[in-house]
């Protein structure tokens, strides 16, 4: 993260320099897209969320507090947008971390890509709130404090959710192995 440069880019944006916003897009489109993709799994949905995220960032840039990290701010918008998108999905597509796995058979529990596929399947079965902490921690490699800032939760709650999420994922994968 080149976070030291972000306040300068924001200042330029607010001063009317549209190219500065393009700099922010270039810098953050990849992580924002990946957060959305891991949360939603559908690339088109992730693109829509990424686009909406940057549009809202543009719209509300004047309200950004430069005392906080810009990436925390824009990731927060991205996470909220993914939760909005998930809320609009049909109930059948909703997920529960408590339900047993039914779809993948033992043949999917092989090494390499199939194991990765099983892990991604398991991620989609836990609740969005738990999934978001896993993604911020293990995909975006953020600290607990950054995650707390983004999710606007106490660090202790973030940690508790992450532990719960890992436990559920482990149980999901164990069920796959024994299915």
């Amino acid at each position, binding site marked *: 993260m080149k976070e030291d440069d972000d306040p300068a880019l924001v200042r330029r944006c607010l001063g009317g320099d549209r190219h500065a916003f393009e700099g922010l897009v270039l810098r953050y489109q990849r992580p924002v897209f990946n957060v959305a993709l891991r949360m939603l799994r559908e690339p088109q949905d992730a693109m829509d969320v990424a*686009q909406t995220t940057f549009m809202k960032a543009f719209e509300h840039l004047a309200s950004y507090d430069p005392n906080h990290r810009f990436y925390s701010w824009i990731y927060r918008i991205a996470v909220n947008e993914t939760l909005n998108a998930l809320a609009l999905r049909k109930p059948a597509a909703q997920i529960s971390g408590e339900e047993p796995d039914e779809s993948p058979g033992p043949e999917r529990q092989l090494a390499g890509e199939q194991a990765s596929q099983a892990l991604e399947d398991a991620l989609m079965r836990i609740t969005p709130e738990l999934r978001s902490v896993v993604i911020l921690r293990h995909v975006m490699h953020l600290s607990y404090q950054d995650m707390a800032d983004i999710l606007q939760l106490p660090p202790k709650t973030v940690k508790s959710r992450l*532990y719960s999420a890992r436990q559920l994922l482990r149980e999901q*994968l164990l069920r796959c192995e024994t299915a």
Partner: protein
Amino acid sequence: MDDTPHLALIHAEIDGELDARQRAELARQLLAEPQIRTEREDLRQLCAALDALPEVEPPAQLRASILAALPPSGIPRSRSGWSAPRWRYAALLAGVLGAGALVFETLDGTRPATTEAAGTMAAARVPVTLDTVRLNSGPVAGRVSLYRDSGGLGVVFALVAPAPVDVLITSGEHTLRINALGRTTGPGEPTTTVALRGFGTGTQAVTVTFLMDGRQVGSATLRSPDSR
């Protein structure tokens, strides 16, 4: 969190957050309990696999589509600022307000004393879009926006659906029901503007629930910037 202390130790170890005393305690438990060793190994492998999930390169057109969607004018200077033309939604909103949209409404529950449907001429009002949610999954597509003007809050719907959509707008104790929104055929997204006169100027969030044949098919929460 799990109520077994050894699991908290294992998670903390994975995160590199054990102090010397905790590390010694975990080592003691690992030696004493094969099951704890298994759990630890499972969780370590899980976290390693999660850490190894590949980052995906965004589609090449993403940057262009983001930049193309930005308004041609500059960035708003403040939350309450407004510079026209702005969002494409905003232009759409102004057109709808200017034209005066007819809204067929019913109330679900107690009608707020001052709640009214939109459809008033609003040429003198300067609306500010507070939030927009795109509807891109489920049977209802399009977008819904929360705005504020001199008359208070309002919601603009631009919906496309295979059948008429009933909408519940709720915030706190207020509920407003709008029947039969959305175009089922033809190009474009028909728009409907609903003023939320009875919802109060301090409203922070509005929940919109979409119903088809009486069944919930989606929802969205619109927030004012003050609530974020």
